[in-house]
């Protein structure tokens, strides 16, 4: 399992496309920011798909941590990851 943070910067009218895709895999923590745990295979899948969705002038950053253990995460204010499995 890897822990990933995905940050994207795309044309305003195209953001829903990325939003909808990433929601299948990760938690939407802020505008254009997703994070969560994925398997290696799923991460590859997501990266490949995201790359194919890009147009000129747009960019996506994927920060990949080899495990959740390596993330030192501080949150100020509300944390969207709180109780993510309990609704």
């Amino acid at each position, binding site marked *: 399992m890897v822990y990933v943070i995905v940050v994207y910067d795309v044309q305003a009218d195209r953001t829903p496309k990325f939003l909808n895709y990433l929601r299948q*895999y990760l938690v939407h923590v802020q505008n254009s920011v997703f994070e*969560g745990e*994925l398997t290696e295979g799923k991460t590859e899948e997501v990266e490949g798909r995201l790359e194919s969705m890009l147009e000129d002038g747009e960019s996506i950053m994927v920060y990949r941590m080899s495990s959740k253990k390596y993330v030192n995460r501080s949150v100020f204010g509300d944390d969207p990851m709180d109780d993510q499995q*309990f*609704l």
Partner: protein
Amino acid sequence: MNDNYHIFSDGRIERHNDTVRLVGLDDEKSYLPIENAEALFLHGQIDFNTRVMSFLDDHGVAMHVFGWKDYYAGSVMPERGQTSGRTVVEQVRAYDTPERRRALARKFIRGSIHNMRANVSYYDGRGHEFGDVIEQLDTQQERLEPELDVSELMGVEATARRAYYSVLDDVLPDGFVFGGRQYNPPDNEVNSLISFANSLVYANVVSAIRATALDPAVSFLHEPGDRRYSLALDIADMFKPVLADRVIFRVVNRSQVTLEEFETDLNGCLLTESGRKTVSKAFEETLNETVEHPRLNRKVSYQYLLRIEAYKLKKHLLTGEEYVPFERWW
């Protein structure tokens, strides 16, 4: 990650842009990453339609429904990915051959007693004197002779479980009084915790069995009945001490669940919504804990241990390889 999603609020789940979202009564929307989902646990009043059902089916995600006051009501399982007539035939053959059925039933009880004993000896080493209970469990373990029939084996298991439960009143903090197992409905706080936690174990075992081609209704220790997955009961018994009971001890000893988290009505006693939430959360944490597996040489989660159990059973039925029940080794 095989995440279980527990939905306590009321509302509606729907398919939206290739994932599942929950729309609460206040119209607030939350999204469940479907790709990481193992099962949805519906504790609240939830509406859904066939579109979301077939979507969950495509993703192999089960829905476990908890009905009135959170009794386990049933599961909506995805279409079977694994079908194997041979497995089912072998499973029924083993059930129908008295020696084989007894041998499996005995193994399940061996695992259960071992795991109950592990909990008791943990507390025995921590300021309690449970030497006599350990002795009683050992005695029952030794009674598991090959010639015992299934009802006699059930008797051994019942005696062992009674001895095991006798430690609860000592282990639990003041105010929590157990006094014996009661259900339908549970009559006090401790029984209500046990019922709820056991139903979570059961639902997770149902999911695990579904990952194999085993028929969940054909069981060995419990009598296969109608309208229930009795094979899940066989397997769940071994895991209750390790999953359900440890979670119960933890939440009450850390005062995460206090006596205020219960409602008493109609001569039953049940957890409140926030109590159920706390227990489910502690339960999910436990499912995600990992242990080093001696034979697989890697770390596996407790949730995966459930699946391993189903795989081992299937392998035993198909190849005759000895089935070694789950016995806590750490």
